[in-house]
């Protein structure tokens, strides 16, 4: 009896010694793995990223090549009257739709990630400054944030693209650079608010006070303690920010303002094909469905990350 008990205890001890301490990140990863919708989102985004990176090798045709012998608006192969060389058909300039959709993935991902990176840089800097310095600095910076926050962003994008779209700056990288700047200019305020809130709660925590009292320089406290401890909500916010920008690009390009033709973006393909809807609705539905799937993938991932990183928030 007692022998058995000691053995059991020994086994438990051995097990405990083997298993590593569970931190926030491994815990979060365990929870995320259980969330099927979030995993599906990750898988979709990974595949899309691979397609975008290897677009050159995957696209069966040059997205902007106009073949001399091909017809315009040929339907996808499963419909009658298709041209077998073009799996998803051709557009009104006889360009290969599949190739254009593949290159469109590049635009969508780039337009999602770059502005978020810019907004992170700018927003986190302002947020840390406002939160850490406090007082008058905090007041001035946050009033600025409030005003920009109230600025209706879609209208800003529309006005900026319509005014600057035809300038040399607006034409850089088919209009991508202008979108990056326009998105970052309005987007940083969300990040600044979030980071400031984090800094304010962390600032008075015991471990920060301890670090300060033993004379750790401020810069080091911020890099080693404040930033790592605010990472979780920042990651969640970034994950929700990306689809927001993908949608904004799609909407602007649909209105004829975002990405300049002939560059292919899903939004300007929707615009192009919307006029063909009574002829063959499948054209407009292809880029539209890709936009919707991408939005869903990022939202599922964002929901999953939020639940995984912040267990208190879950019901």
């Amino acid at each position, binding site marked *: 009896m007692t022998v058995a008990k000691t053995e059991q205890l020994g086994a438990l001890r051995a097990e405990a010694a083997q298993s590593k301490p569970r931190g926030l990140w491994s815990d979060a990863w365990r929870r995320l793995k259980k969330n099927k919708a979030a995993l599906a989102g990750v898988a979709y985004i990974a595949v899309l990223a691979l397609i975008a990176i290897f677009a050159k090798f995957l696209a069966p045709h040059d997205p902007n090549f106009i073949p001399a012998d091909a017809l315009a608006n040929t339907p996808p192969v499963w419909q009658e009257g298709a041209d077998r060389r073009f799996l998803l058909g051709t557009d009104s300039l006889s360009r290969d739709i599949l190739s254009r959709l593949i290159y469109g993935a590049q635009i969508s991902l780039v337009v999602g990630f770059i502005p978020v990176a810019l907004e992170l840089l700018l927003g986190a800097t302002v947020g840390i400054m406002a939160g850490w310095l406090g007082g008058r600095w905090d007041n001035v910076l946050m009033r600025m944030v409030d005003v920009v926050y109230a*600025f209706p962003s879609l*209208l800003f994008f*529309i006005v900026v693209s319509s005014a600057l779209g035809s300038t040399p700056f607006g034409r850089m990288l088919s209009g991508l650079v202008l979108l990056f700047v326009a998105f970052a200019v309005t987007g940083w305020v969300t990040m600044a608010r979030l980071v400031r809130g984090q800094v304010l709660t962390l600032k008075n925590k015991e471990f920060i006070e301890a670090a300060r009292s033993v004379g750790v320089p401020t810069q080091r406290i911020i890099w080693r303690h404040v930033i790592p401890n605010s990472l979780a909500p920042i990651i969640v916010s970034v994950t929700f920010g990306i689809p927001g920008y993908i949608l904004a690009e799609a909407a602007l390009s649909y209105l004829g303002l975002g990405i300049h033709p002939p560059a292919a973006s899903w939004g300007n393909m929707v615009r192009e094909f919307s006029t063909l809807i009574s002829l063959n609705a499948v054209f407009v539905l292809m880029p539209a469905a890709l936009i919707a799937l991408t939005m869903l993938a990022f939202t599922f991932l964002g929901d999953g990350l939020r639940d995984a990183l912040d267990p208190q928030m879950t*019901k």
Partner: protein
Amino acid sequence: MARFALNRILWTLPVFWLVITVTFVLIQVTPGSPWDAFNAANGGRLSPDLRPTWEREHGLDKPVAQQYVNYIVNSARFQFGESYTQQGQTVSQRIMEGFPYSARIGIYALVLAAVIGVPLGVIAALKQNTMVDYVSLFFATVGATVPSFVIGFFMLAFFGVRLNWVPILWTDWRNYILPVVVLGIGTSAFIARLTRASILEITRQDYVRTARAKGLPERTVTIRHILRNGLIPVVTIMGPALAALITGTIIIENVFGVPGMGYLYIQSIGARDYPVIMGTTLFYTFFIVLGNMLVDLTYGVLDPRIKAS
């Protein structure tokens, strides 16, 4: 309360100032002068002799600083000048031409969204973690995530082209159905999520437990204690939701060819009709800022703690 309200109203002024300034600066940096845009909008056939007169009429011969002040003063009076493309029509007239369509679609969509979203959220919350909850939560996530213009094209393809139930081009009242449904779905998903979260919070309150402990019938507890309090935040977002819907129609109006404000807006961008672009932008901003202000004020009335922060 009065101080809080006044403070909140005054804080909308810098927002308007920023929007006015940004639009003004953008007109200034846009390549080509307003005359070029006016000329282009009229087919480029205007004689250059007309230019000085036209510029004097529109105050463009004055120094930039003077123009800026005039622009602010005129914007505050909702006077945005004349349209470049529609001779003799003021921008306000252009806006008012399209506004009724946008407003009608926005109001109908809001009613539809409330009729679908509130019951869905209430049922999901009261039957938390059951199949009903999961299904409605899934619907709410998808409905809030999939862009309205994507849903719009799917509906147009199915009901307009395949079934031929509604006309593709703008003809009669039947054209209201799809835009209203599309916008209503997105907003109903948002309302359902909010309702569910709010009701769930209320069901955990002490006074609900007290009501149950007193032995009140479940029906009474639900209706009188849970719903009455849980629906307050839902009611307060209706104003801003309407403002968001009226502006949210910019893209949807273009999908369905509704001759509303959003459609005119995009048309004027294509035609480089700057007074209309800027006037409409400010008009939209007014709605959005007003909506946000209203929600802050109503929350301030309902929850005194907010005023403090």
